[in-house]
């Protein structure tokens, strides 16, 4: 299950980079300690057969590059516009994964994306907990998958 979810999120992210940003060269590796000085963190809650959250960690430079490619406009800081565009991308990736899961009879819904403050002291335990680092020519992003099976 951990492996399937990891794969589904990687595939959905690759698809979004390919279709929305025209970036097909995307590699991925599990990552326990993703380090980044300045990042935009977006959380997408999951409810249903699986419950928990996905945290998307977008370094500032990756975020600015993504919005630049989509709009053709220059951005030099993460403002309300950039954060909202990036949140929608987290929403799209998560939504695509939920569709994939429903094909294997796992029914979940996602909650609207929210900006998030990473909390190093948050040591709540999840049955399914895995991190994946996605590397592209416009920068990295990190996905933290934290889910429990509904009892």
């Amino acid at each position, binding site marked *: 299950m951990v492996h399937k979810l990891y794969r589904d999120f990687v595939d959905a992210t690759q*698809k*979004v980079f390919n*279709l*929305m940003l*025209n970036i097909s060269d995307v590699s991925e590796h599990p990552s326990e300690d993703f380090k980044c000085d300045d990042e935009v963190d977006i959380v997408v809650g999951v409810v249903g057969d699986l419950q928990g959250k996905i945290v998307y960690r977008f370094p500032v430079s990756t975020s600015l590059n993504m*919005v630049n490619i*989509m*709009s*053709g*406009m220059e951005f030099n800081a993460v*403002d*309300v*516009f*950039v*954060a*909202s*565009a*990036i*949140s*929608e*991308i987290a929403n*799209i990736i998560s939504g695509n994964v939920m569709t994939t899961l429903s094909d294997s009879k796992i029914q979940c819904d996602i909650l609207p994306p929210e900006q998030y403050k990473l909390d190093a002291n948050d040591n709540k335990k999840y049955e399914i907990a895995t991190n994946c680092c996605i590397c592209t020519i416009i920068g990295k992003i990190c996905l933290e998958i934290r889910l429990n099976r509904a009892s």
Partner: protein
Amino acid sequence: MLWKDNYELGVPQIDAQHKELFRRVESFLQVLRSEDSWEKKLPKLNETLEFMKKYVVEHFHDEEEYQKSINYPGYEAHKQRHMGMVGYVQEVSRKYEQSNYDENLMQEFGGRLLSWLINHVAAEDQLIADYAKKRG
């Protein structure tokens, strides 16, 4: 430019509407992101917003009619996506008017619209064309 040729579906009416929509969204974003003061941007911004609100509904309707004409199996699900966006646009414009044209609301709307539209046209609308081609 916001529009990319690989977004084309090969359905002339829909492609023309997509291009027009992207052209309007692009000019909306250019005004939204320009250095001018908010007061100065407002008339042009509100005008484009009003146009887009009507045009989106028109386009969604025509695209849904096209899907019906080819018996597209994803019709219902696709219609839900359209309805979700129309609902969002209506809700934002209501809040925007109530707030007396708050800039943050529009910046947030612009960012989400950008990502939503690109994904919708590049991924979800493409599925209609894929189906039409397969069907022959």
